């Protein structure tokens, strides 16, 4: 019978699907793309067996020796607990939905098979990442999902902007990944293991005699690992790649850049949480970064006009919420929000894809409008997703946001709490703006007038996700013997208690945001240009995304390229010309000079012989006769 021990089958099946589609797939009907959904479907089925086994027998780990060299012993194993199995379910479910959706959305595209191949590879790597029980193994999967992200962002590589965005995403996340790798190796050097449980054990006894791990070392390595999470989860200041990643196909944005890959950073911190907990400085950094991200990016989502970019900044902002919750010692709240956000945001992206499918590829909200009657299902789903993200009772987003707010107040105090509320307010506001601008009012372009509803195959995942967005509400209630989903995920943490005043405050905030959106974009009671006219400077800063991209560009142009140019010059002149070619050239030149002595003329040779004889005579004279 399938159980936890067979959990490795899930990534394995997807990996096999990748290999089969990528290599001999083109001889199969439809490039063998159908193998992708099939593989992910079977993985999803296996998930239920794993889950039931987990609920019956409790968490378990399986590992075997991967390679052994002297004292170095590296294991290859998987960890199956509530957290990883839940993530497994999330990944396989969203991947399944997105692949079904893609079947219709991507039909007629070139490289159809390749698209599904990379999707399968992504699913496999993401599951490995979730299951991995040691950091080295996880890092491999971590880089693999980055690779898939790169390949899928740059799927339309004929388009220069897509290729650039893919490159940007890859390089930007790499900055964090390098930090993470250093952190992992640092931990290995001090603790002597890559095993997560071993590291956590060492961290929990930090500072005790006999423990090689010092408090400073723990803080440093945790911060370095968090750098990897910052890159992958698009936290400030490495968030710049995620909005550009919207160049990829929309289902990719839904799967990778909203629901699964970008939450890998959150998952990593949650997985390492007992170790993070022992490093208060690192926790503060996590919280502050999360707060900055949540706040700043929610402002940006307000001014964007591209429908996918609004969602992208919203994603970054909500990832900030999760990090903030983690930094406020609330693993359960963070993962709870991760789930509700994953469902809602995947659905929103799929809806956005449906919208752009309906209006023939347009993505600019200013060219839409009045789509409610033409695309009713899409409208309904998008509205549900938007309201959930805004945090309106009784949708799941309300409960997860509530949990996050409670955690922040308990863990970090009122200042963080108020700023989080501000971010939540803007979250509601931009969601209202998105839905109202796209679906109400008059059509503002020819395509919007002739929009049509998407095919059924695309609507099925939408509806399923919409139902889940509503249904995820149950996660806020007692589940499997735990007070709620958060405690199910992290039994060691305290369960947040439902506080009525908190719920009321957050509802009021969300309602205020939605109301403001309604007033501006629904009834036009307030002109959309009201704020723009009054605060032009603020508007300008927002439209330039805080000039962060410009700053990075400046750094790259002036510092990186400058240093690189100098290094290249050094390499070319000192290393290459002098160091490598120099000896060779000097040998050639010396040889060219020296060969002139070979005149081929006998008298010259005779002369040299005579001179040699004279020299010998003189030497003889000096040493034999005079002495």
């Amino acid at each position, binding site marked *: 019978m399938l159980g936890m021990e067979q959990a490795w089958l899930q990534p394995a099946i997807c990996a096999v699907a990748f290999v089969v589609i990528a290599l001999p797939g083109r001889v199969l009907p439809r490039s063998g793309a159908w193998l992708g959904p099939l593989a992910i479907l079977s993985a999803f089925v296996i998930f239920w067996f794993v889950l039931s086994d987990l609920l019956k027998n409790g968490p378990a780990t399986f590992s075997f020796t991967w390679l052994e060299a002297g004292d170095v012993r590296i294991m290859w194993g998987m960890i199956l607990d509530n957290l990883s199995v839940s993530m497994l379910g999330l990944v396989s479910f969203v991947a399944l939905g997105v692949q079904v959706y893609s079947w219709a959305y991507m039909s007629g595209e070139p490289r159809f098979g390749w698209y599904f191949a990379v999707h399968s590879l992504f699913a496999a790597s993401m599951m490995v990442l979730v299951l991995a029980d040691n950091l080295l193994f996880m890092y491999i999967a971590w880089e693999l999902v980055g690779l898939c992200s790169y390949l899928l962002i740059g799927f339309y590589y004929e388009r220069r902007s897509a290729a650039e965005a893919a490159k940007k995403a890859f390089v930007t996340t790499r900055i964090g990944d390098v930090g993470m790798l250093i952190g992992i190796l640092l931990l290995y050097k001090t603790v002597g293991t890559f095993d997560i449980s071993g590291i956590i054990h060492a961290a929990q006894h930090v500072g005790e005699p006999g423990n090689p791990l010092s408090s400073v070392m723990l803080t440093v390595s945790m911060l370095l690992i968090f750098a990897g999470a910052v890159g992958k989860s698009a936290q400030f200041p490495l968030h710049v790649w995620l909005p550009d990643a919207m160049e990829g196909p929309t289902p990719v944005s839904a799967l990778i850049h909203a629901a699964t890959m970008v939450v890998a950073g959150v998952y990593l911190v949650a997985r390492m949480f007992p170790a993070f907990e022992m490093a208060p400085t690192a926790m503060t950094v996590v919280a502050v970064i999360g707060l900055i991200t949540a706040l700043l990016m929610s402002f940006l989502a307000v001014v964007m006009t591209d429908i996918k970019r609004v969602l992208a900044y919203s994603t970054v902002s909500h990832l900030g919420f999760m990090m903030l919750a983690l930094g406020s010692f609330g693993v359960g709240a963070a993962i709870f929000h991760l789930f509700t956000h994953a469902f809602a945001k995947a659905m929103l992206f799929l809806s956005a894809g449906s919208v752009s499918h309906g209006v023939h590829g347009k993505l600019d909200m200013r060219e839409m409008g009045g789509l409610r009657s033409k695309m009713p299902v899409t409208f309904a789903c998008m509205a549900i997703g938007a309201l959930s993200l805004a945090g309106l009772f009784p949708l799941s987003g309300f409960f997860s946001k509530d949990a996050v707010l409670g955690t922040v107040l308990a863990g970090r105090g009122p200042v963080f709490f108020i700023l989080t509320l501000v971010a939540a307010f803007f979250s509601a506001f931009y969601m209202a703006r998105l839905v109202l601008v796209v679906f109400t009012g008059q059509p503002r372009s020819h395509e919007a007038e002739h929009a049509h509803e998407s095919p059924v195959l695309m609507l099925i995942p939408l509806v399923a996700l919409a139902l889940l967005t509503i249904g995820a509400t149950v996660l806020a209630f007692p589940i499997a013997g735990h007070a709620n989903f958060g405690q199910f995920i992290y039994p060691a943490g305290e369960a947040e208690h439902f506080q009525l005043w908190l719920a009321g405050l957050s509802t009021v905030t969300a309602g205020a945001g939605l109301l403001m959106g309604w007033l501006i974009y629904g009834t036009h009671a307030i002109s959309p240009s009201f704020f723009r006219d009054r605060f032009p400077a603020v508007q300008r800063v927002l439209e330039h995304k805080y000039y962060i991209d410009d700053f990075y560009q400046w750094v790259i142009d002036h510092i990186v390229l400058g240093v690189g140019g100098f290094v290249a010059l050094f390499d070319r002149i000192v290393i290459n010309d002098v160091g490598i070619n120099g000896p060779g050239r000097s040998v050639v030149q010396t040889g060219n000079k020296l060969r002139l002595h070979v005149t081929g003329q006998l008298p010259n040779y005779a002369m040299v012989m*005579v001179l040699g004889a004279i020299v010998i005579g003189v030497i003889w004279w000096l040493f034999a006769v005079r002495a």
Partner: protein
Amino acid sequence: MGSLIAYSFLAALIVGGALGVVTSRNVAHAALFLLTTLAAVAGIFILSLAEFLALVQVLIYGGAITIVLLFALMLTRLEEFSNVRDNTQWPMAIIASVALLVVLVGAIFASRPSGAALRGASFQEVGTQLFTKWAVPFEVASLVLLVALVGAFLLARGGGNPGDDGIRDGGNRS
């Protein structure tokens, strides 16, 4: 005293002839200077009471070798004979030669040669030694001569015209 006078005369003849050989612009003149020198060397041999050597010198050098040299001259570039030029390295050659002379003279004086009275060896003595003690080297020397003779014959006999590089149809075409 008389022998010293004779010796000085012969030495002057030798040195003068030798200088003539190495400086003469005309190849035929050089050959004649060489003949003079060789004859004077034979005279030195007589003064040194080596009559047999003197005879050999006259026969082989004065007769055979000089004749062969003259043959060679006639078989090669006659048109240049009256005006041969020296190498460009001749100043260096003078310097090297003088330097070697200094070394040699220095060596001679450093070794302070001292000889007993002059004594000669009769034909009989030389012949006895040559065919008893030195018989084997003597036979080897004659073999060397034979080989050289055959080699010279093969080399000189092969065909070919001026301008041929001579590699394809070397002397062993027979």
